[in-house]
């Protein structure tokens, strides 16, 4: 276990669950440092899908026969797994969506549209992913509400005094990113949501970058709503979660309409179903839900504390090594930071960095990371981002650091 700085975490065993990590890319062993964009999938998740399709698949919810009942049970069991993982109170508070983006759109539509009016305010941060900006801009256009942004400083930390001044009884929704996908900043959610609750605002946490790294307890954090995507927590694409407090969801009109979300349909009118069915129109992503359940069980079996600790040790090592390279400027230096590093290499464009890294087998993300306003804050258009997950090793980081040096050499 030479890869493990703590000599506790069995990363070799974990890597054996991820066959793709033994692949080559451009004839070099794959060094995958793009888990913030999407994580790889363990065997357990892929097999949960083939088990479904080879073993007991059927459409869910209305079949009287056994396979339909088993499929329904497994689908609903995935809901319970998510509920437990985020410590929600009721299964009905967990809605399966297509991903974080859809979850936020659903809230903007079904909570925002009926409840907001001219003069109301929505607060987000300047470091949001586009998914937590554009739906609110659209909602503001429709309702006349105003969108406000909590600024951050040059380290990438939110300026809470500005938030304190901003929040008022006009504030109706406070929707913030838990961990920034381009800066790595871990935001002080509890402080922000407690303030929001003082003025009676509804709170939404974009947990897309936190759910796979740290414990997210919706009750402790005072979340009214929470959104994340399955594909970032080692689960399949095409599935995501919207958590909502029971009394809020119960009062919300449906988002999409169609089969499986109605009590009765006649030519004249339609009676909608109770939650969660009301928000799950049409045939659901059965394999997605089951795969997500398997992914969360996988993560839980390793243990979030162990994961957080190991990933933090990777970050520390990478930080130390990368700071030894004088041409590197790190973008995002918050004290509380998740295991990713966004950086610049003097005037070498990130896309050139990415392309050269690619040829070396190293997958890093380059660009604005769907956070254009965050980039603008720093007066830049792109960074190179390396993000670390629990299947990465100290060796991965060594190769990555060598890669940076080769990029610099190429451009000398």
């Amino acid at each position, binding site marked *: 276990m030479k890869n493990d700085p703590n000599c506790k975490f069995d990363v070799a065993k974990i890597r054996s669950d991820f066959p793709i990590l033994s692949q080559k890319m451009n004839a070099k062993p794959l060094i995958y440092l793009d888990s913030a964009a999407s994580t790889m999938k363990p065997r357990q998740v892929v097999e949960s899908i083939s088990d479904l399709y080879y073993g007991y698949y059927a459409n869910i919810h209305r079949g009287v026969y056994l396979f339909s009942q088993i499929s329904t049970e497994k689908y609903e069991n995935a809901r319970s797994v998510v509920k437990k993982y985020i410590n929600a109170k009721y299964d009905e508070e967990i809605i399966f969506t297509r991903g974080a983006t859809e979850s936020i759109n659903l809230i903007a539509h079904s909570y925002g549209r009926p409840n907001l009016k001219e003069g109301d305010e929505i607060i987000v941060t300047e470091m949001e992913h586009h998914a937590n900006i554009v739906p609110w801009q659209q909602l503001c256009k429709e309702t006349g509400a105003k969108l406000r942004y909590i600024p951050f400083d040059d380290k990438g930390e939110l300026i809470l005094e500005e938030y304190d001044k901003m929040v008022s009884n006009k504030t109706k929704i406070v929707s913030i990113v838990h961990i920034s996908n381009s800066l790595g900043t871990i935001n002080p959610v509890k402080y922000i949501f407690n303030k929001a609750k003082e003025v009676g605002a509804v709170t939404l946490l974009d947990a897309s970058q936190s759910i796979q790294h740290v414990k997210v307890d919706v009750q402790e954090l005072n979340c009214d709503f929470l959104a994340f995507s399955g594909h970032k927590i080692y689960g399949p694409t095409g599935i995501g979660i919207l958590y909502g407090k029971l009394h809020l969801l119960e009062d919300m009109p449906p988002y999409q309409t169609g089969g499986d979300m109605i009590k009765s349909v006649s030519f004249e009118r339609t009676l909608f179903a109770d939650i969660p069915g009301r928000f799950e129109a049409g045939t659901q992503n059965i394999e997605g839900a089951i795969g997500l359940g398997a992914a969360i069980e996988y993560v839980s079996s390793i243990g979030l504390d162990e994961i957080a600790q190991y990933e933090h040790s990777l970050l520390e090592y990478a930080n130390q090594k990368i700071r030894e390279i004088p041409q590197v400027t790190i973008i995002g230096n918050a004290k509380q930071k998740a295991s990713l590093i966004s950086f610049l290499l003097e005037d070498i464009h990130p*896309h050139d960095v990415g*392309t*050269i890294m690619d040829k070396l087998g190293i997958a890093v993300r380059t*660009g604005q990371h769907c956070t254009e306003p965050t980039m603008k804050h720093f007066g830049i*258009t792109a960074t190179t981002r390396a993000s670390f997950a629990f299947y990465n090793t100290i060796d991965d980081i060594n190769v990555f650091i060598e890669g940076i040096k080769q990029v610099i*050499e*190429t451009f000398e």
Partner: protein
Amino acid sequence: MSELNDLYQEIILDHNKNPRNWGKIDLPSNFAEGFNPLCGDKIELYVNYNGDKIQDIKFEGNGCAISKASASVMTTMVKGKTKDEITKIYNEFHQIITEGCNHDHYIDENLEVFCGVKEYPGRVKCAALAWHTLNDILKRIDNNG
């Protein structure tokens, strides 16, 4: 780093560091902006067209080495050329970046540095940005004349 030489050759790196025809033209006869939303590359292209030839051309922008070098090389190749001559060069360039170089055919030596782009599907658009922006200008010249 020999694998990378096909793309990041001296000449590209040189054009990237010292782009030719960099800057603005005051009161250009034609101007266009190009933008590649996927990678954030931007170019501003200034042209003086005298009804027959491109008399002067300059650019500014923000982009990777490939897009910058491509713009720089392009300006040196199209200056003083007629629209028909430019179209011919563009067609050759386009074939090179999408299909690669077939060394049986004659390849303009200025364009040879782009023979490797095809191997990098993510970078084809970077290489093409300046040319697409110039095409926008040429089309407008067409429509007005």
